[in-house]
């Protein structure tokens, strides 16, 4: 009989799946909303408990799904890294739902609300499963769930542009899944395993013996590229701005802050647990990832500078931030991977904050989205203005905010590698580019426009949108706190990450 706390990862995944099934059958959208938020909050609490257990005891455990031991049946693997990421994801999921609550109920047709929350629950389950899985095929199954649910979030808001964006997203995403699946079957046929520990042994053997070199290379390439397409790695990012920029506020926050991270975490775990950093460097995959990451950091920001639609600007900024994460992976060192993990956390808090605040600012400006029409909007909802400011400063990388610490760690990780100059230069350049679009956006929301413009905007605004939104205020306060905690008290968190990577 194992300690009860070891059941929690499995229980939280099943809870989210069952909540998804139940919310499809409940009558009212409000009930579905409360079930979903409750499940996410409960999952966050459960994973915090798991985190305490694994970190303080300094252990990891494998949870067999059923009575069948490691190489035969499905299993979950849990250490401090997984528990930390899972609790952060669940918490942010609940926060996104709270922050975008008002707009969700305004924009979704009543008949579709419950199905929307089904999708959110399934996304939560797939995020947790992708984080915890110790079986590559389970990873694939939950990638599928995540794909369908994410596309449904985009198309839940009924409009032409959204449907087009959802179709593009679906095609690109399915191509990514397909590549991952082909890579997975190739890997399975040269190793004979699907569970990660057994797979790792077989891959290490193949690496030493040099057998099946070409299929192994192609398999690794396809799996990395498949996950890269799905997490908007730079040259495959074209689906992202339409999908994330057009969706409802809560959807954008969830898609940008969390869904991409599920795939990235799976990739990180695959690299750490199965392929090993050395194999990736040997096959040359690390350099390709690094190049795509660096290009993404710069290109994403350049595209964002050209945007004047605030949500599309944030979406392009996501491309740049994902580029940072891939740069950390591509450095090919454990420090780089830890920096990437930290940035996953920072971005998972920062981007939802920015999207929620942008949604609120646009709600108090008559649902206009162009920066020009948002001028002075921060005074109409000061909380949203402050939240946006905190998020933007963190994205630029100002000290005391979370983004600074991750840039610092990236720079540190780049020092012992052969790519120091290139990486540091790219970080510096990308910081300047980030400032080039976030500072004008900040000035736009904080500088009052001429009186007649403001009156025109106010004329478009509904009174109910101007009323203060308590749920939003709580959500944004929580995320602001998270950004500051990541920026100031980051040592405990990086300690957990280091322990987690060691125990992966």
């Amino acid at each position, binding site marked *: 009989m194992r300690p009860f706390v070891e059941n929690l990862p499995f229980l939280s995944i*099943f809870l989210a799946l*069952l909540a998804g*099934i139940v919310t499809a059958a409940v009558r009212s959208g409000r009930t579905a909303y409360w079930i979903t938020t409750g499940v996410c909050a409960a999952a966050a609490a459960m994973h915090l408990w798991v985190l305490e257990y694994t970190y303080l005891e300094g252990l990891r455990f494998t949870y067999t799904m059923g009575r069948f031991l490691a190489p035969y049946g499905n299993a979950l693997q849990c250490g401090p890294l997984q528990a930390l990421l899972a609790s952060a994801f669940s918490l942010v999921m609940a926060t996104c739902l709270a922050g975008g609550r008002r707009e969700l109920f305004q924009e979704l047709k009543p008949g579709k609300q419950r199905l929307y929350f089904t999708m959110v629950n399934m996304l939560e389950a797939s995020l947790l499963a992708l984080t915890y899985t110790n079986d590559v*095929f389970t990873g694939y*199954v939950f990638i599928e769930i995540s794909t369908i649910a994410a596309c449904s979030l985009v198309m839940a808001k009924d409009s032409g542009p959204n449907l087009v964006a959802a179709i593009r997203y679906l095609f690109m995403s399915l191509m990514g899944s397909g590549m991952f699946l082909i890579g997975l079957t190739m890997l*399975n046929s040269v*190793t004979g395993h699907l569970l990660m520990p057994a797979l790792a042994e077989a891959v290490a053997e193949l690496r030493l013996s040099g057998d099946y070199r070409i299929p192994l290379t192609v398999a690794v390439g396809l799996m990395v590229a498949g996950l890269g397409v799905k997490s908007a790695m730079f040259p495959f990012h074209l689906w992202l701005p339409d999908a994330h920029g057009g969706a409802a506020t809560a959807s954008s926050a969830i898609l940008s802050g969390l869904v991409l991270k599920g795939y990235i975490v799976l990739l990180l775990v695959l690299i750490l647990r199965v392929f090993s950093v050395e194999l990736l460097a040997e096959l040359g995959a690390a350099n390709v990832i690094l190049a795509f990451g660096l290009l993404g950091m710069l290109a994403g920001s350049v595209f964002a500078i050209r945007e004047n639609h605030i949500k599309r600007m944030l979406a392009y900024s996501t491309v740049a931030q994902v580029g940072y994460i891939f740069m950390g992976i591509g450095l090919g060192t454990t420090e780089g991977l830890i920096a990437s993990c930290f940035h996953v956390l920072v971005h998972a808090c920062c981007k939802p904050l920015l999207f929620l605040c942008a949604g609120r600012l646009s709600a108090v400006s008559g649902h206009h989205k162009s*920066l020009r029409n948002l*001028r002075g909007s921060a005074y109409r909802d000061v909380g949203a203005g402050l939240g946006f400011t905190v998020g933007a400063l963190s994205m630029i990388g100002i000290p005391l905010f979370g983004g600074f610490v991750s840039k610092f760690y990236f720079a540190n990780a780049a020092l012992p590698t052969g790519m120091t100059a290139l990486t540091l230069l790219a970080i510096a350049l990308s910081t300047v580019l980030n400032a080039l679009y976030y500072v004008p956006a900040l*000035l736009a929301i904080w500088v009052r426009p001429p009186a007649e413009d403001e009156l025109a905007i106010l004329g478009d605004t509904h009174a109910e949108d101007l009323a203060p939104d308590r749920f939003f205020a709580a959500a944004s306060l929580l995320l602001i706190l998270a950004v500051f905690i990541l920026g100031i008290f980051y040592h405990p968190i990086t300690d957990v990450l280091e322990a987690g990577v060691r125990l992966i």
Partner: protein
Amino acid sequence: MHEDRRDKNLRRRLTSWVDGEREPKDQTLFVMEQRPPRRARQTEEEFERKDRDRLQKFFNWYPAAAAVICLVMVAVLLIAVMNMPGFGQADNPINNEVSDRYLKHGREETGSENAVTAMIVGYRGFDTFGESCVMFLAVAAVMILLAREEHRPADADTEEPEEERADLILEQAARPLIPFMLLIAAYMLLHSETTPGGGFSGGTLLGAGLILTSAAFGAESAQRLLSRRQYSAVRTFGLLAYGLLYGAYIFIGANGLQNHLTRLFLLLDLAVGLVVACTIYGFYALFSRGRI
């Protein structure tokens, strides 16, 4: 000369901006065009025009780029496949202790007669539950996309005449066929433990029976067989029962408790069957008439 003047001008503007003498909007908001606030109607048209332009540009380079990418992918995959272990040889890496165990001990460890069922419901049952959730989600996604609002008489009016038309040949052929289909489906579901993937194939047949009913005798009679409420209840109940039973199975197995759930696989397969049947019937109904 000209350069110099611009430079000075820029510096003057910058200093005055830093000193706070000047409204920063025109200089700092350089990313924004000065545009009138958007009207809902304009955006729609604007979007269509923009989209057409984008499509035009897209089709200019799409065929060539697609051909190149496809050829490269084909070449890479062919080279990889040529270097992979040959099909069906005894010393392939996949013929290892894992498949050996599935074949030799599958029966005693899972209690299932069939090795395929032992694997998909027993050893790798979590994946199968995930796949069932994928099916459930797929129908939910189509509902989000296609489901019409419940109280809209306009849609119902345009739809009715089409559905009244019955096809004599289809009807006469379906009349003797449907009972047998449902019978065989029930047989397959009840024997799903001992057949490979029994729940899935039985469920498909059950769904096909419903689709044939709906196609031959019209939506009315299919709805009499399985109304909207019943459909939703069966679908939810099937997956929920599967989830709860399988969750209990995992919990017992992982904690090493005494297993009192005998014949569990039969129940699991029945639940899978219900989910599959509802999925394919749901797709048919939603795509053909926009509602269950």
